[in-house]
């Protein structure tokens, strides 16, 4: 496996390589050196595309989150998965949007669904849920049916009815 050999030759001794059940090479990397590793992989090992950035919630175990990057090198026809553990109370990770702008939406989704902060992300807004939603749905403690799923609609609807009533009373006064 070229990527690991290269990393070891650069002195990355702490990296562990395992194979997942789908026999994809997987590197486990400490959070502090994650961005550096991604940079090396892009620069030297030809991983020109990021396939996915997502997370796994291991709650209630600690470290709680596991960040998963999956890279693809089309020139070498090679895939690589990187895993990185994140603490539950402070889930911050470096953004890789400076290396692969394609990760922008993936990281936004990760923030939306898990509440993982990506440092260096230019536009870390929610992707799928409304901005004012207030929960991170894919966290294990979040119930499947949601917590007040209709709250934002209800607020909007109240305003809508008030607007309509104000309009009606205005028309009534005009008549």
């Amino acid at each position, binding site marked *: 496996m070229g990527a690991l050999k290269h990393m070891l030759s650069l002195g990355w001794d702490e990296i562990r390589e395992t194979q997942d059940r789908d026999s994809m090479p997987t590197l486990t990397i400490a959070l502090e050196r994650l961005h550096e590793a991604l940079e090396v992989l892009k620069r030297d090992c030809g991983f020109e595309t990021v396939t996915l950035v997502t997370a796994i919630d291991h709650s209630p175990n600690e470290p709680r989150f596991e960040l998963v990057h999956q890279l693809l090198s089309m020139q070498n026809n090679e895939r690589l998965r990187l895993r990185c553990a994140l603490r539950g109370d402070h889930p911050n990770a470096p953004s890789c949007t400076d290396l692969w702008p394609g990760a922008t939406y993936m990281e936004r989704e990760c923030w939306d669904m898990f509440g993982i902060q990506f440092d260096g992300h230019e536009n870390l807004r929610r992707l799928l849920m409304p901005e004012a939603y207030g929960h991170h749905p894919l966290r294990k403690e979040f119930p499947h049916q949601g917590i007040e799923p*209709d709250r934002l609609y209800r607020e909007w609807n109240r305003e809508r009815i008030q607007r309509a009533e104000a309009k009606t009373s205005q028309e009534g006064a005009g008549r």
Partner: protein
Amino acid sequence: MGSLKEVTTRDDESGFMATRVNELLNWGRKNSLWPMPLGLSCCGIELMAMIGPKFDIARFGAEAARFSPRQCDVMIVAGTLTWKMAEAARTIYDQMPDPKWVIAMGVCSSSGGMYDSYAVVQGVDSILPVDIYVPGCPPRPDALIDAIMKLQRKIERENPLRRVLEGPQELDESGTGRLDVPANSMVETHSMGTYKTDSGLRTDQYTGRSKEKN
């Protein structure tokens, strides 16, 4: 289908034709429905199939699908309505001119269907009054055509003249979907029960009607 003969009697000798205003208006309305296709998900594809060549909804006078709500009178909610989309759906409904009807196409829009999740509205009848529910995931285009025919039968029973003579009435949002009762008379049987949230809200609060007004 759709012949004027259905609603008129005429006397060829004298050249008179007689009909009732209600029947004539309803006849016109039911045979020229303009759908507002709110194609949200999978059902949208079957909705397109219904407009498309094989099923050809033009046979029932409802082929003029317009994406501009101001021109439409029947809203077909085709697919899963999420809470994020609900505001848009309600706005579109509000923008449609009266008289207007709503068809909930598919189980998602009828009841939330297979999505008992945090993001999905558990039936569009919690935000809109629904006239016809079409089961299926997605319903076949024939089922939707059947819904259009049922809606036509429902329109036949309406009383547009009352509206003209008695002036504009408070908009009824009961959403009954029952065919055997004239529209705009089903306020009391609004029985969708409570919505499953911690807040224990009644669905009425989404339709903007409080219990006292009933």
